């Protein structure tokens, strides 16, 4: 399992991607989704919520309270247009960096 540090910068990217693809989710739902897709990645739960709140602060995601089927209050997050733009930029950056790193690894 990679060290959580490596994930630090990319956590918002993953969260945005998940929210974009799967629609509104609560914090636990986001963790569960990431873990379901990748057995390798594990979200450090302690950093998820501060990250979510920072993203909310930046206006990339929007939070609201809902009541679940079993009458439980849950806070769900959904991506905003600004977040979608951010996702686009981040994704492009990530793929180009990954490609560049791959190139170096292949040709070094």
């Amino acid at each position, binding site marked *: 399992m990679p060290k959580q540090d490596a994930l630090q910068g990319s956590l918002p990217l993953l969260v945005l991607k998940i929210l974009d693809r799967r629609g509104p989710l609560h914090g*636990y739902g986001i963790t569960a989704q990431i873990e379901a897709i990748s057995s390798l990645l594990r979200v450090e739960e302690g950093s998820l*919520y*501060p990250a979510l*709140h920072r993203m909310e*602060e930046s206006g990339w995601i929007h939070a609201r309270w809902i009541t679940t089927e079993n009458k439980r209050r849950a806070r769900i997050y959904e991506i905003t247009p600004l977040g979608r733009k951010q996702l686009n930029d981040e994704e492009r950056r990530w793929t180009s960096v990954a490609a560049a790193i791959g190139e170096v690894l292949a040709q070094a």
Partner: protein
Amino acid sequence: MSWISRISSAFRPAHTAADLDDELQFHLEQRAADLVRQGMPRREAELLARRQLGNPLGLRESSQQVKSAAWVESLLRDFRFGLRMLARYRTASFAAIVSLALAIGACTAAFALIDALILRPLPLPTPGQLIDIAHVMPAFFSADNQPRASDTFSYSLYELFRDTVRDRADLFAMRLSAGLQPALFDDSGGASENIRAESISGRGFEILGAKPFLGRLIQPADDSMADGHPVAVLSYAFWKRRFGGSPAALGRWVTVDRRQFQIVGIAAAPFGGVQPGYLTDLWLPLSIAAEPRQLADPDSYGFSIWGRLPPGVERAQLREPLQAVLTNFLRERVRINPPRNLRGAQLQQFTGAPLAVRDASGGRDSLFRQQFRRPLWILALICALLLLIACSNVANLMLARASAREAEMALRISLGAGRARLMQQSLIESGQLAALAAVLALVFAAVVAPAIVVRLGPTEFPAWLDVAAGSRTVAFAAALSLLTALLFGVVPAFRASAVSPDAMLRAGGTQHSARAGSLRWMLAAQIAFSVSVLFLSGLLLLSFRKLISIDLGFTSDNVILFDLSPRQPGAHRPNSGEQLLEHLRHLPAVRAASISQQRPMGGAMVWIMTPVIRFPGRANETVRPVEVPVSAGFFSAMQIRWIAGRDFLPEEIAANSASVIVNQAFVDKFLPGRNPIGVKFEKLTDDPDPVPQQIVGVAANIRYNNLREPEQPSIYTPLRDAAGATLNIRTASRAASLVPWLRREIEAAAPELTVRGSILLGSQIGDTMIGERLLALLAGFFSVVALLLAGVGLYGVINYAAVRRTREIGIRIALGARRSSVVRLMVSDASLPVVAGMALGIAAGIGMARYLASQLFEVKPTDFSSLAAPVACILVAGVAAVLPPALRAASADPLIALRHE
């Protein structure tokens, strides 16, 4: 999240924290449920979930940092804490707030007055563009031989000026009024009222940028000698006062100077004329209000020339062309009408008088403003000193409180609170004190400033100053209280944050060397401020006492002054008023009656004649005596001591007699050691032939024009016309109640005369000392406040020091020190800052007293008596402050003091 939501979430952190908890709790439940579903026992699943999530408190903290601007929250917390502290130290807080409020309020009131009279520009659009024109009259034109700026011109000069700069600036003319004149409104039932009427060119209002509130203002078409309109415009404030704000004022007629004008408009507030301190009641069109003769005569000055520069034009650009016009004009006048008393270099100086284009945004300097500029700044100086006293007082208080709270501070520092945070909290507490004080101060100023304005004007001319709390006053009070908070808050804040926790916690709170040092300095500063306030106030009070106890040379009780005017100036024939005086002297309540040309004690409002005289066989005298025309009986009516010779005879008054009476100062100056009776001299006037004079009597010196001027050599000449003069009536008693009756008697006995105004001589004298009286009154008030503040401060600090030394004194006594030596120790401890502060205060006071010199009368700052009073006051306050705690400490049981530990 926006700034607003950040800050608003700082205001309700509890809510946000609960939300966060909720969210994390939900996460834990979900995770545990999943784990249980995967087959883990419930208990174990919950533990694992919690472990994975991490420390919930840290999580919450880091999320909260995001959600609310942390500093806003810490500010709020400190704010609430500060309020709790204020409430806990209730008495101290109350004392601090009241003394600060008093001082800030005094400063704010002084500012409101100075702002309204001196600083604030005229309430007109872009006042910075307004200009007026002045020229400097050579020194030999004035009696005191000083060059003086004159700001009036003749109408012909105005027209020349206006046309010369027509394409660069708009000029207009005004006749401004220094005094009041009678006006008759058609709804008054025939009783005339004294108002300030001014006249203005047709374009004047337009150029000034004044707007009508109702109706219209004066327009170019009104201002024409041939076919103008006799219209009048009221100022808003006058309209409110005279007509109660009724629109029915429009269309009414008013008679001014025997001409009728119809009121057509009200100028919008707050504009009330261009002379701050004076309210212009009424404006008239210039060329209709002025006598045609005045407009036509190129040598008749009296018109003020104002204007407005369009953007981009500098004042300097107008100066040169206008100067050329003025010089040419004066040369031409001198050629046509050569002045007899000027020749050679003087003539050159006269025609070359430099012209100035002045910034007129602050309005025209009225007599009133000239008179009060200095007293108001002195008032401000004293208020500022008072504020410094209050500041050092409160700083002492805060210091004392800070040391009382040292244990708390030490605990907080050792628990990890940052020093910046402690300073922030200490400054916030200071700010809260200052803010509360500022609010009270505004209330105080709102009450005091108008009360002072009422006392500024002479009885006849009420001052008009807008001192209502405007944005400028509020901003001043706010800025001042902020400054104050820093001033008294910084030292305690540093002290609070400089606490060393281990020393504090270990020693249980009895280290005090450093603190005693800063306290001592604060005490010295406070005493210095108090001494200088007491010193300056003392000078003003002493000077006022000297002024009111001065020997006038006449008695003023029960004397009424009536100003007489001809009823019909055109048809008026000079009349000595002898018949009128005869009639009055036979009335039951009248003791004596006489007439004098100038109103006694007229102060700056009276035109004084100062002729050049020459004794036979001597050169022209360089000192010019004052000429005072009076009727026979003046000296006995005013109860002036008679020295030699006789009074005027009635036939001397009637005929154009050469007899004069002089005063003792005249004899001392010009005829020392000679018998003055029968001496002849010549009076030189503009008339080429000198007027021969012969002295028939000598009267004692009196203060004729004002209280301050020393006795000047004076000539009393026979008064030839009662019209335009002042009638002085001495009644047996209750003069004030006889005024209306006497007025009717005068007008019945002399139908060709009318009474323009009347005043008791006593009030007239009072009016010449308004500035001094006001300063003395305020100085008295401020010195009581200063003494009170200083006393409280001294007591607080010394008492505090004594209490802190209780243990040390207990040890000393236990070791055998005598009680008297303990008292001596404590007294000598306090006396160093007291003495140092006094020396500093006196030095500063003497330095500042130079600024007061113009207001002082026969009092010198270095007089022993002016120094003794403040020193004695502070000493008494100091002794009163130090003795009780010293005695208490000395009589304390050493066991109790030690057990205190």
